[in-house]
């Protein structure tokens, strides 16, 4: 799709590069974010990369929409020139199944697989953090092997424990805080994803690569 720049209210503009979960599109989103943030314009507040879009928050008291969109258009033209930075690889130890991943049996059953197969398939791939959102520190990662792509729960749980590794559709994620959630829970990590008191409050950043390591 041809990139589009549209207003989201009077204090943000949305750059649409694609409308699906696709690594090539998402890399362009991160490239644009890097370009915008390393050569900012006065009035730029921050950017929020998502799967196929970059939301650019700006201060309407300082920067008019017409100027902001013109500036972003010029940045879009330079995306090709951005050399993609080599992503960080973060290893995440996971205890799969049993009390750590109560939905693992139903996921296996859904696909007519053994539990061990689901664990192997989930932990085999290196995933990309396409975006973060939903709550502080929550990484949206993908894409899952088609063999374990599973829809969300029909009825979300009211209480998903902190550190739970889950899947939904072609995505996988980890709950940084205890919260309600509709994803299927398959495991648990003891890593801390979000600590506002820490100098580095977040384990992940958008664009990181992640590998799950089976812990017994």
């Amino acid at each position, binding site marked *: 799709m041809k990139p589009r720049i549209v207003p989201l209210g009077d204090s943000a503009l949305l750059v649409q590069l694609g409308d699906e979960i696709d690594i090539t599109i998402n890399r362009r989103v991160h490239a644009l974010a890097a370009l915008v943030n390393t050569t900012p314009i006065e009035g730029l507040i921050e950017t929020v990369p998502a799967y196929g879009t970059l939301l650019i928050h700006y201060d309407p008291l300082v920067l008019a929409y017409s100027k902001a969109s013109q500036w972003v258009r010029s940045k879009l033209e330079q995306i090709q020139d951005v050399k993609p930075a080599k992503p960080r690889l973060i290893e995440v130890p996971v205890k799969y199944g049993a009390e750590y991943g109560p939905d693992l049996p139903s996921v296996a059953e859904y696909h007519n697989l053994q539990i061990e197969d689901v664990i192997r398939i989930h932990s085999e791939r290196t995933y990309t953090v396409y975006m973060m959102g939903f709550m*502080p520190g929550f990484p949206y990662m993908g894409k899952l092997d088609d063999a374990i792509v599973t829809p969300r729960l029909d009825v979300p749980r009211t209480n998903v424990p902190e550190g739970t590794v889950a899947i939904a559709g072609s995505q996988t994620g980890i709950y940084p805080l205890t919260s309600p959630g509709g994803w299927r829970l398959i495991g648990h990590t003891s890593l801390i994803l979000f600590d506002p008191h820490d100098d580095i409050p977040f384990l992940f950043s958008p664009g990181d690569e992640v590998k799950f390591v089976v812990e017994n």
Partner: protein
Amino acid sequence: MSLTVVEASGLATIQDSGRKGWRRFGVPMSGPMDIFALQAANKLAGNPLECAAIEIGLGDVIFQALHDCVIAVTGVGYPLSIFAWDFPLWSSFFVRGGWQIHLNKADSGMCAYLAVSGGIQIPPMLDSCSTNLRGHFGGLDGRSLQAGDILRVVHHHSYHEFVPRTLCAEARPLYSDHPIVNVIMGPQTKNFTEESIETFLSNEYTVTTSSDRMGYRLDGPFLSLRNTTELVSEGMTMGSIQVPASGQPIVMMADCPTTGGYSKIGTVISADLPLLAQCVPSKSRIRFQKTTVAKAQKKYRELMNGIEKNIVQLEEDDAWY
């Protein structure tokens, strides 16, 4: 120098202008529901606009000044009394050590802001003093104020230095029980039928009682989507109007999550967010109207730049003391 919380029956939180720079990690901006009232309170108290103040909502609060201080109170729906006297909002006041400050929830309006001259001293978390209730951080331990809390303030003031000030009524947003709220349409207008866009722009909506700082759920005619499949998640902002498959619109407010997956019919303009924020559930009747980004930004600049220009000193005869 400090203020103590004697009673807090509703939701009273510390908020500054919001947490910026962390939204790409999924951290909501938080900050005030009514940015105009917060900034006006700070200006009246002689503080920088962005300073941390107390947002008071949903119930009554009583504070007690432990030392002499200057405060300013703004907002809608909270009659104010200090010691034994009643005062109008949108003004600054000298408070003697030992006096109590009462704010009692009335039927109209939703929140008031109390700023203390010198600002409330709270260590920032992720570059902001705003309270993130869901994440349990920021403000005072990430929670609502409760009886016994002590809020520290830096500055010292004496009565002799104090000049009472007020913000002219003409400079304030047109708070009303029947507000007209301007919206910039999109980005997913195409996902809605033409009739439902017409419905949205020509009917009255009320805010439901299941609304909170994260979002105001609207009650009114349902909006039909052409296609109810969710979008892949994308960024959103305060004021964005999400419409889930149920057809009941939700306007995202101060604690808005950074991203969402529902179609957005439009976004409320910054200058009119204070009007919406002060709408009373099941009571205020809201009409939405389409506008352009250029007009919206002009209106916001005029509104916010009007704070400083329209603060006046009260004449001796008009002074509250």
